[in-house]
């Protein structure tokens, strides 16, 4: 069979989502952001919500998410995305409102906004990329950095006496009355990607239906920050991140 006989519309089984444009992504090869961006675009498209979706971008690696997914966006100050999403959803209750944040943005400088938006039961979805490091600023310690993990600001490994313990956010949010759905996912295998996509869809549906606050934590790799190849980073994540941040639903009401 000739190649041109195969490349036909009726044989097409997969395509880039329409909402993802052709802008050159600034993410490093192997980074989880690209996959999660694609899932966000796919889910919005499949739900038919491109005209009602409003996303809030963080300060961190995903600061330019608005350059890649063609929906309306507001760029937040560092950590403030959940406060911004709260106001957007209250002022435009018919919209699908979500934030897309990293671990520094959500779990360090934005901890107060995260906990209070969740506890007020704001009808927003929070997508939380936890890769245990600050990517954008060059690989410094995040609140989720594991004990012993080397970063630019923990060059000999994270120590309890110097740096305290890794912060696990999902169980805190699961314990709040305002959340309806708290889950931990990953995107390191095709099966994990499918599960993560279903989780994002559920969170988005919760925002539209006004069921409360949803958190989709995606335990992710930062191979540049971790100084590992993409394949090694996936292995390191499975061996070290998953024991501390186990995957699965923490709350689904």
């Amino acid at each position, binding site marked *: 069979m000739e190649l041109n006989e195969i490349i036909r519309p009726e044989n097409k089984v997969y395509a880039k989502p329409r909402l993802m444009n052709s802008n050159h992504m600034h993410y490093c090869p192997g980074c989880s952001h690209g996959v999660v961006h694609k899932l966000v675009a796919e889910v919005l498209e499949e739900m038919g919500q*491109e*005209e*009602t*979706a*409003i996303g*809030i*971008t963080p300060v961190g690696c995903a*600061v330019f998410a*608005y350059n890649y997914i*063609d*929906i*309306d*966006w*507001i*760029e*937040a*100050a560092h950590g*403030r995305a959940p*406060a*911004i*999403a*709260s*106001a*957007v959803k*209250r*002022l*435009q209750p018919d*919209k699908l409102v979500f934030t897309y944040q990293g671990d520094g943005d959500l779990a360090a400088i934005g901890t*107060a*906004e995260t906990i*209070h938006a969740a506890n007020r039961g704001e009808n927003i979805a929070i997508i939380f990329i936890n890769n245990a490091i600050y990517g954008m600023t060059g690989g410094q310690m995040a609140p989720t950095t594991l004990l012993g993990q080397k970063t630019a600001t923990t060059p000999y490994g994270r120590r309890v006496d110097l740096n305290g313990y890794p912060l696990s956010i999902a169980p805190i949010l699961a314990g709040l009355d305002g959340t309806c759905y708290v889950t931990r996912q990953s995107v390191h295998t095709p099966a994990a990607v499918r599960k993560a996509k279903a989780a994002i869809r559920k969170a988005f549906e919760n925002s539209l239906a006004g069921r409360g606050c949803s958190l989709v934590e995606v335990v992710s790799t930062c191979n540049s920050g971790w100084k590992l190849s993409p394949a090694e980073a996936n292995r390191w994540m499975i061996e070290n991140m998953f024991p501390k941040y186990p995957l699965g639903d923490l709350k689904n009401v």
Partner: protein
Amino acid sequence: MSEEVKLLKGNEAIALAAIRYGCDGYFGYPITPQSEVLETLMEQQPWDTTGMVVLQAESEVAAINMVYAGAACGKVVFTSSSSPGVSLMQEGISYIAAAELPALIVNVQRGGPGLGTIQPSQADYFQATKGGGHGDYHLIVLAPSSVQEMVDFVGLAWDLAFKYRTPAMILADGVIGQMMEKVTLPPQRRRRTMEELIKQCPWAVTGKKGRDKNICTSLELESDKMEIINNRLQSTYRDIARHEKRYEAYNVEGADYLIVAFGSIARICRKSIDIARERGLRIGLIRPITLWPFPSEAVAQAARGTKGVLTVEINAGQMIEDVRQAINDRAMPIEHYGRLGGMVPDPEEVLDALNRLLINPTK
């Protein structure tokens, strides 16, 4: 609701004026001496009448970012606070200015620095008029001197903010916030419909129905593009400075001395001027209503032909810098009289200061 006359505290007046303007949302955090703004809104329950959103935020930081969000949605939104809280909001205010969004921030000033005092002050003049947060930007700053002006400036601030797509601030103080006066509230205006909002604010983040995506951001990493944005902001500020300077002149014709004072203190100075007139001393008053843009020409004009200028402020001497720059005459004596710590001068005290500093200065 039609026009209505009421006896109100300044803070209550702000809240009621906002509802009647057709405000879409308020986001605030309690702090003395302005907590009545949030309390009055919660008591009024405007979500049941006009559909206005009222939310007590977890901090001033969250509150100003909620205002940023509402402004990005093209909504008529505001927050109120007092000095320490407004310091916390400076980052968010800088973002609102940078993203070219209309919003209202009310500062009912108390004394600082630090936790300071809950008593009145005008010590945030520099912060309000010279930027406050990071980067090159200005706020339109309105200084009310009566409870009626607390009402009137709510509408004026939003009109100007939407006209120029820039944040505006009402810089009041604890005296005006807590004082009760008879005021006329305007009739209730209808909140804009979503269609009206989209027509007025095609840039607003409302979901990309029937158009390309809208992005609200203050970030631009390419210097040549960022410079264009900076220049556009500066051009807006020049427009505002050309068209929006406001002030009140009192008794300035043929005056021997000029007082420049704003807000609550300008009213005390009016009393001083009336007392002086009975004693045969002619003093004029310029009360800047817009602190930024500062009415420099009016101050310079009124100072011409006088024997000296006194600024009276309840701070250590802040507006006097703008007065000196406006008059730009080293031969003209320009002095400052201020009280600190929450102390407010009385009319005789102002006249004593004028005498001591300008009429019979001790060498």
